[in-house]
């Protein structure tokens, strides 16, 4: 279902989702060309989670994200060109090339720190929430992590603290392995958690927790808006688990693009290889959203085509900018250890 938002807002959500998708697909191509080294994680398949969820936050709220951060940063308004420059290790990256894909953060947007340790941010989120509560600033903290984060002890320890101290924090757990078989057979979904459903874990610490379909932008928006409202009312931490089906391009360790996304796939999957057709038909959150927009007569196909065309241009320019950005001066490796 569509989020209950104005036409302009809905088109903006669509634009941000497409921006993330095209960014990630471009990134995969650049990696395949050998333009940057190291492992990386893309957000494809979760766009209808991050974009509507983050649209529920205020401009001064804090956010923390993980190794799978590109989508969150773009959803919040990060510039694709500076994000890409960072991932390519260039001087104009948000972190001056010192963070890379694992650690890109944009403090001006409220992202104070990005940790590539799966649960590394969960204790930190309690800290910004604690500070906001102490200062009575009204800010909340959104802590964005994957289902694997719950396997680390940092998660339950932090849930305990947040619950005891009624900290204003939103835990958004993006479970991208809805039908996964788990790394240990017999375990729940993609995680190896005995606590199943995953919401059992925060619930044990008396944190209200609910599950929502992460490919349903309207459902995500409704659940997060409500959780955010409760937090702002002083009801303490809230936990939302969103469920998506892992994008088949991420099945291997190194992502591959089975078919470049264009909005018209929403109605015509003939270009999609048979092996991955089912995902694009049933689980691709962008195609679902685009169909809802058009079939709900919010926008026409032509209008979406225009939005996508502009997104493509922006990504092309971002790539040009990032590739032209020089590598940082070598001496900078020795600078900025201390404030």
């Amino acid at each position, binding site marked *: 279902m569509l989020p209950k938002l104005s036409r302009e807002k809905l088109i903006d959500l669509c634009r941000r989702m497409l921006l993330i998708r095209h960014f990630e697909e471009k990134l995969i191509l650049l990696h395949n060309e050998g333009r940057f080294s190291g492992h990386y994680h893309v957000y494809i398949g979760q766009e209808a989670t991050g974009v509507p969820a983050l649209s529920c936050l205020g401009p001064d709220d804090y956010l923390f994200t993980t190794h799978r951060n590109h989508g969150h940063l773009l959803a919040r308004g990060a510039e694709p060109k500076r994000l890409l420059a960072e991932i390519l290790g260039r001087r104009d990256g948000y*972190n001056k090339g010192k963070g890379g894909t694992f650690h890109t953060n944009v403090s001006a947007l409220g992202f104070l*720190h990005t940790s590539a340790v799966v649960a590394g941010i969960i204790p*930190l*989120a309690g*800290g910004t*929430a604690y500070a906001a509560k102490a200062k009575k600033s009204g800010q909340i903290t959104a802590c964005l992590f994957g289902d694997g984060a719950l396997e680390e002890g*940092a998660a339950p320890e932090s849930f305990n*603290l947040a619950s005891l101290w009624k900290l204003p924090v939103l835990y958004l757990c993006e479970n991208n392995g809805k039908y996964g078989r788990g790394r240990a057979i017999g375990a729940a979904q993609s995680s190896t958690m005995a606590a199943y459903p995953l919401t059992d874990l925060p619930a044990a610490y008396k944190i209200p927790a609910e599950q929502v379909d992460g490919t349903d932008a309207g459902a995500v928006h409704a659940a997060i808006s409500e959780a955010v409202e409760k937090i702002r009312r002083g009801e303490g931490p809230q936990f939302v688990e969103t469920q998506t089906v892992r994008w088949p391009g991420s099945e291997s360790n190194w992502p591959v693009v089975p078919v470049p996304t264009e909005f018209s796939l929403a109605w015509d999957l003939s270009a999609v290889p048979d092996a991955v057709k089912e995902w694009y038909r049933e689980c691709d959150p962008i195609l679902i959203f685009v169909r809802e927009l058009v079939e709900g007569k919010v926008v026409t196909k032509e209008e979406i085509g225009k939005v996508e065309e502009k997104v493509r241009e922006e990504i092309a320019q971002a790539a040009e900018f990032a590739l032209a950005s020089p590598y940082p001066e070598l001496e900078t490796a020795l600078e900025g*250890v*201390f404030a």
Partner: protein
Amino acid sequence: MREIAYYEAKLEALREILAADERVHLITDTLTGFLGLSPHRARFREIAERYPERVISPPISELAFCGLGIGAAMAGLRPVVDVVTASFIFEAWPQVVNEAANAFYMSGGQTRAPVVFHVLHGLRGGGAAQHSHSPQAMLWNCPGLEIALPSSPRDVKGLLKTAVRTDNPTVFVDHGSLFEVRGPVPEGDEAIPFGVADIKRKGKDVTVIATSYMVQRSLSVADRLAQEGIDVEVVDPRTLVPLDFTTLIASVEKTRRVVIVDECRQSCGVAAELAARIAEAGFDKLKAPIRRVTTLDVPVPFSRPLEDFISPSEGRITEAIRTVLR
């Protein structure tokens, strides 16, 4: 100048820090309050009661409450987190060394995390293997952390004030055996800047570089050796990061003999690093090989004679000084 006990100076610093800056929050078990097992620990209660909003007692979750301190620091507070026994910082290791230490650097300078972690390190008489660590050398291997090691009433007050003011994450490595030491402490602010070593005792025959409680132990050895006409200079770096190597090497160049006393293990310890730096910078100035007096490379045994045997004892310090003077 008035003389007060070390623990009093420490409490005074905490009181003044809280009064001066409302961004300061203390995360500590209010029953121990930065004094560990000291019989004076109840003295902290008065501070806790005065600032109920800013002195909070966490559950036994070092990982979560150290991380909470870091996050709160990122959002503009000045949290001082009491980990109590230094061995417990391992429970919070991922947050301290992998989040706090890296935050400023890997964000390209966007994010500061001015948090203070307070620990009580070292051999304490019956602490055995799991309550006796001196993690400062391990911490020194994690760029991004400042490390302070007070050794006197004046230093604990002055360094604690600076720890709260610096914009970097700081590990404040204290030692329970220092709490009863008495010494002059100026009234008023008297923050001691980081990166300034202190010559605790002037001497001309041999330099002893010592940290934390080992400063006090080295000073008693020096007093005893003075009766034999051996004039020991005791130099205390006070902070490892930043390190005032200039003062250390100047003393070594003057006496041309050096013993380094520290409670970390011998291998890859604080003494090992200082010895390496001195050897690189001034090997030709030395008249005798550098000697290290450290905790021996074994887990800490419980039985008291065994614990004493592996410790950097006055006997071993004395022997090392005699060796470099030979």
